[in-house]
């Protein structure tokens, strides 16, 4: 029997210029198809059958929208209806299209079996987690170097600043600009773990701190070293591996800073990655001076990668997973808390960070969504007495 799985929702997308348009979206599979009211009526049948004759009007609208950036709209359909690809389909073609996008299914068990990690880069039988989907798309469809793409989607072409036209700039950078001004003082010693190309390392050094940026990537460190300002230095170290940070003196840091990097200890970026958060947190605790702080800025446990639904000004979302993520790559809050507590940390501050107001002009939908559903969280941790 062919039927619509309970995972499918219908979103109205008509405009006066482009009437009679719906988005049929499978919120678990993160797939979608544009359909008209005739197809919507068909989807209301159980079982699905050809109660009307063709042709049927559909639109190809699905796209891997995170190719625009990790913080880009993750909703995965073309927003502009003028760019929807028009399809006039006969019944068999329609059925095949609906099945391809998991708007209808004929075997619930086989469909549910797809919700697992991909076995390898070419696996298309399993949906896989976000890292896997992103890697597959970037390497097989876009054919781009992931390391280069990562830098371009977050930083300006010269690698010296965070892009202001993305949520990295509007949320993360604007927050850190204020946070560094308030908390990083001349004479402090700071370690920026997973410093990447060193933009934040330099930003902290500008406040007079002596900042050591540490990263395992030669490619990122080459950029960081080329752009280092006074007070900033960079070293290659294997963060999170036993003995990886041993060259750094014990109790030497007033602040250890880490952004967008701890999440890789929950879902490794690649299968061979050595990622033991206990090793890392033990190292961080060792590096901190008495009274020192570990500042952790990571994607939000609930809302990162949640689809941006509704109108631009009145967004809503559908959360399909939280405690046991198969698609998501950020752990639930309780996972973070347990790991920090087990490593001897206590929480001194928690912030859920929202975008600066200028972003409402740059990307109204992104602004309103991120203003209501925070995409980052900052934790300030101290050594438990």
């Amino acid at each position: 029997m062919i039927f619509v799985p309970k995972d499918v929702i219908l979103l109205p997308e008509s405009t006066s210029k482009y009437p009679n348009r719906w988005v049929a979206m499978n919120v678990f599979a993160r797939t979608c198809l544009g359909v008209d009211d005739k197809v919507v009526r068909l989807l209301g049948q159980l079982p699905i059958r050809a109660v009307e004759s063709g042709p049927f009007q559909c639109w190809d609208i699905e796209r891997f929208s995170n190719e625009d950036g990790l913080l880009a709209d993750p909703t995965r359909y073309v927003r502009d209806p003028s760019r929807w690809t028009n399809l006039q389909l006969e019944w068999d073609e329609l059925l095949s299209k609906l099945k391809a996008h998991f708007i209808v299914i004929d075997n619930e068990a086989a469909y549910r079996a797809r919700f697992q990690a991909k076995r390898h880069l070419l696996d298309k039988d399993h949906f896989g987690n976000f890292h896997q989907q992103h890697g597959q798309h970037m390497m097989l469809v876009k054919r781009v170097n992931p390391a280069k793409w990562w830098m371009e989607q977050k930083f300006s072409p010269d690698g010296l600043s965070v892009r202001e036209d993305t949520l990295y700039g509007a949320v993360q950078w604007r927050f850190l600009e204020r946070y560094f001004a308030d908390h990083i003082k001349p004479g402090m010693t700071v370690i920026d773990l997973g410093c990447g190309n060193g933009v934040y390392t330099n930003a902290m050094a500008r406040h007079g701190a002596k900042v050591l940026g540490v990263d395992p990537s030669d490619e990122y460190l080459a950029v960081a070293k080329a752009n280092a300002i006074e007070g900033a230095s960079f070293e290659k170290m294997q963060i999170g591996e036993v003995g990886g940070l041993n060259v750094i003196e014990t109790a030497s840091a007033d602040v250890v800073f880490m952004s967008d990097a701890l999440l890789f200890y929950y879902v490794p970026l690649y299968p061979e990655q050595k990622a033991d958060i206990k090793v890392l947190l033990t190292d961080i605790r060792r590096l901190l001076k008495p009274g020192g702080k570990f500042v952790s800025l990571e994607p939000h446990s609930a809302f990162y990668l949640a689809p941006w639904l509704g109108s631009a000004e009145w967004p809503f979302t559908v959360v399909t997973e939280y405690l046991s993520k198969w698609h998501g790559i950020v752990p639930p809050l309780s996972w973070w808390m347990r790991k920090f507590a087990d490593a001897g940390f206590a929480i001194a501050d928690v912030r859920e960070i929202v975008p600066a107001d200028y972003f409402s002009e740059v990307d109204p939908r992104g602004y309103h969504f991120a203003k209501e559903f925070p995409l980052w969280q900052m934790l300030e941790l101290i050594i438990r007495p």
Partner: protein
Amino acid sequence: MDTKRTVLNFFSRHGRKPLPDAETDALACSYLDMGIIDSLGIVTMISEFENDLSIHFSAEDLQSYEFQTVGGLITLIDRLRAAKI
């Protein structure tokens, strides 16, 4: 350049373990599922075949089931080469 020889040669140079001895088994082999090469090896493989054989795999080619076995890969490459002539 003989496609089959080029493909088999790639696996003998880059494989973490050898392909099955019998040719029919080798051609039917799903090289990723069998752990003969890993996901990073795929990137090397795509680049090497495209450069050496002057072909271009489309996104659809790369995501086809045909691409996932040694024999399917040879058939696909032969088809891409023939289309160029």
